[in-house]
């Protein structure tokens, strides 16, 4: 038997409560005024509850309990300093909470599978939170204006209800526009995905994923934003942070006074992980940490004063970094800093490209069969590569003036190459071990980079090798170049060409 309750109240301080037991029930509550409260409890399946509250300082609470709820459940509408709570125990439940105004709170809790939560908040200082346990759930929150936060905790247990050990897959979408917003997402289980989009300044996103085959992505436009992603076990995540010169709600003063500072932190533990970061703007930073096998990090930064760092532990990892600077440099000096390191890993590769001036790359690899490549186009750039292990390879290419390339290798059968085009450049290669090879060339054509060869003056090229059967090849085209090769050991070969 279907029961239907409709309550319409246009009174202040009204408390409405409805308790329904059975299937296919509908509960509609409409309240207009302030300080109203609604409590709807439904036990059974295929029930529907709608609460509409127009006013402030209102509270609404909806709960549904049943072995199997198939239908649309929980719709709460509040306006200002109100609180909406939805609780569901069952499958295929849907909770929708709309709040307009300031200082609102929304909370949804669902136990079961195939549940959905949709929260929309318009105003300031709002808060939305959800917690669920089950599989194949979908959660989304959309908030606008300042000082809002959205937090979601999702625990992918091994099938709540009749199913067991099923794959857990939850999609979480959080979209915020405004300033001083927070997004906090926690996903435990497999096959989960989350997406956080923020448009504004001083926003924060924190994503934590525990499980396998998870995906996290975020996109933002604004300044002084912070993003952190934590993934444990076999995961994949990608972040795209777009730090445009876009001040939400603030006046746009001048080009050089704008700075976007975005901090993105990604931590992954497990195998087959991906990190993809894109940052456009100035003053951005990113940090990627991976612990596992066959992981990948890709970072692209466009702007000035950016920094990126990566730390990878495990074999067969790869990291690539690309940055470009486009400022005139009159006020905000061109600067980009990247630091990449891999610890005790074999068969890793790292590739960096930097375009602009005053860029710096620090790269360290520990293990065997590692490859490091760095290419810098501009002036006053700095490359520092350190490799500890055997059969490693380093390549540093620099086009411009006043550049510095330092390569240090410890181990055997390593290879280090440095190519420089321009003036007043310095290269220093140090190799400790045997059967190592060092090539240093200034002013020669290099296929991997653009620029004309033949003009490289006032360069300082130095190779130091300690060990046996090492070879050093130093060549320079230009004037006032200095080449120095120091070898300690037996069976070493040094070759210098200057013209």
């Amino acid at each position: 038997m279907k029961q239907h309750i409709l309550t319409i109240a246009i009174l202040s301080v009204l408390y409405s409560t409805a308790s329904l037991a059975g299937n296919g029930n509908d509960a509609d509550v409409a309240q207009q005024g302030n300080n109203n409260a609604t409590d709807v409890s439904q036990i059974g399946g295929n029930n529907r509850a709608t609460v509409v509250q127009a006013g402030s300082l209102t509270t609404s609470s909806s709960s549904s309990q049943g072995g199997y709820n198939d239908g649309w459940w929980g719709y709460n509408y509040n306006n200002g300093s109100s609180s909406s709570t939805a609780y569901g125990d069952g499958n295929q439940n849907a909770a929708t909470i709309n709040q307009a105004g300031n200082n609102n709170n929304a909370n949804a809790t669902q136990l079961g599978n195939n549940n959905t939560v949709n929260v929309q908040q318009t105003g300031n200082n709002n808060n939305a939170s959800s917690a669920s346990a089950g599989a194949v759930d979908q959660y989304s929150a959309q908030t606008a204006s300042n000082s809002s936060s959205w937090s979601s905790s999702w625990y992918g247990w091994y099938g709540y209800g009749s199913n067991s050990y099923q794959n857990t897959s939850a999609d979480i979408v959080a979209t915020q526009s405004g300033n001083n917003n927070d997004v906090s997402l926690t996903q435990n289980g497999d096959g989960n995905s989350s997406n956080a989009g923020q448009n504004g300044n001083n926003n924060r996103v924190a994503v934590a994923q525990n499980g396998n085959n998870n995906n996290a992505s975020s996109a933002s436009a604004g300044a002084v934003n912070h993003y952190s992603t934590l993934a444990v076990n076999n995961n994949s995540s990608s972040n795209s942070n777009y730090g445009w010169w876009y001040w939400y709600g603030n006046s746009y003063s001048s080009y050089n006074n704008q700075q976007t500072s975005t901090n993105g932190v990604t931590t992954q533990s497990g195998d087959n992980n991906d990190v993809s970061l894109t940052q456009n703007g100035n003053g951005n930073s990113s940090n990627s940490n991976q612990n596992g096998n066959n992981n990948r990090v890709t970072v692209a930064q466009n702007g000035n004063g950016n920094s990126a760092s990566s730390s990878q532990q495990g074999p067969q990892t790869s990291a690539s970094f690309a940055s470009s600077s486009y400022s005139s440099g009159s006020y905000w000096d061109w600067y980009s800093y990247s630091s990449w390191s891999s610890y005790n890993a074999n068969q890793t590769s790292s590739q960096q490209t930097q375009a602009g001036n005053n860029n710096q790359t620090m790269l360290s690899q520990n293990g065997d069969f590692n490859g490091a490549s760095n290419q810098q186009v501009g002036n006053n750039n700095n490359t520092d590569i350190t490799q500890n292990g055997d059969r490693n390879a380093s390549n540093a290419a620099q086009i411009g003036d006043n550049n510095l390339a330092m390569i240090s290798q410890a181990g055997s059968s390593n290879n280090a190459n440095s190519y420089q085009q321009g003036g007043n450049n310095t290269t220093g290669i140090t190799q400790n071990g045997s059967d190592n090879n060092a090539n240093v060339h200034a002013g020669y054509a290099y296929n991997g980079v653009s620029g004309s060869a033949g003009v490289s003056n006032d360069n300082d090229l130095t190779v130091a090798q300690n060990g046996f059967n090492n070879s050093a090849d130093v060549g320079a085209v230009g004037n006032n170049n200095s080449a120095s090769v120091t070898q300690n050991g037996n069976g070493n070969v040094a070759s210098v060409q200057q013209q």
Partner: protein
Amino acid sequence: MDNRQVFNNILTLLLVLSGFFILPRAYAVDDLATIQQSGNENAAYVNQITTDSRFSEYEGASAVDITQIGDMNYAEIHDLGKNHVDIKQQGIQQEFTALVEGRGNELLVNQEGGGNSGDMAVVGDNNAISLSQSGNADHSDIQVEGINNNVTVVQSGNSLGFSLELNGNNRYVTVTQQGI
């Protein structure tokens, strides 16, 4: 003018053209190449092409400095221009080969040990060659082609060998061999 003279004039003209027009090259100046090796069976190669003073009055001031400490090391230098070359080898069975082309070059070679050997070829004018070998069974061969070149050889030890071939005028040669 006989055919031989015509041939020589044409050859000279071709050499001049190749130096100025056919093969224009930007020769470097003020370069410095330094190689220091300590150990055995090491090899050092330097090819330094700076001002081609065979055809130009402008002369660079590049330098090569090779130091090898150990046994059975090898140094090979090809130097073109007005350069300063300094080779120091300490040990036994050291070997070097030097080809110096240009004017006003300074070639200083010092070998300490036994069984060392060296071959030097100097093509140009106003060059200064100084070779010092101390030890037994040292050997050196020097070929000089040009004018106003100075050659100084000092060998100390037993079973020493030295040969010198000079082509040109106004050379000053000093050879001293001293047994121990």
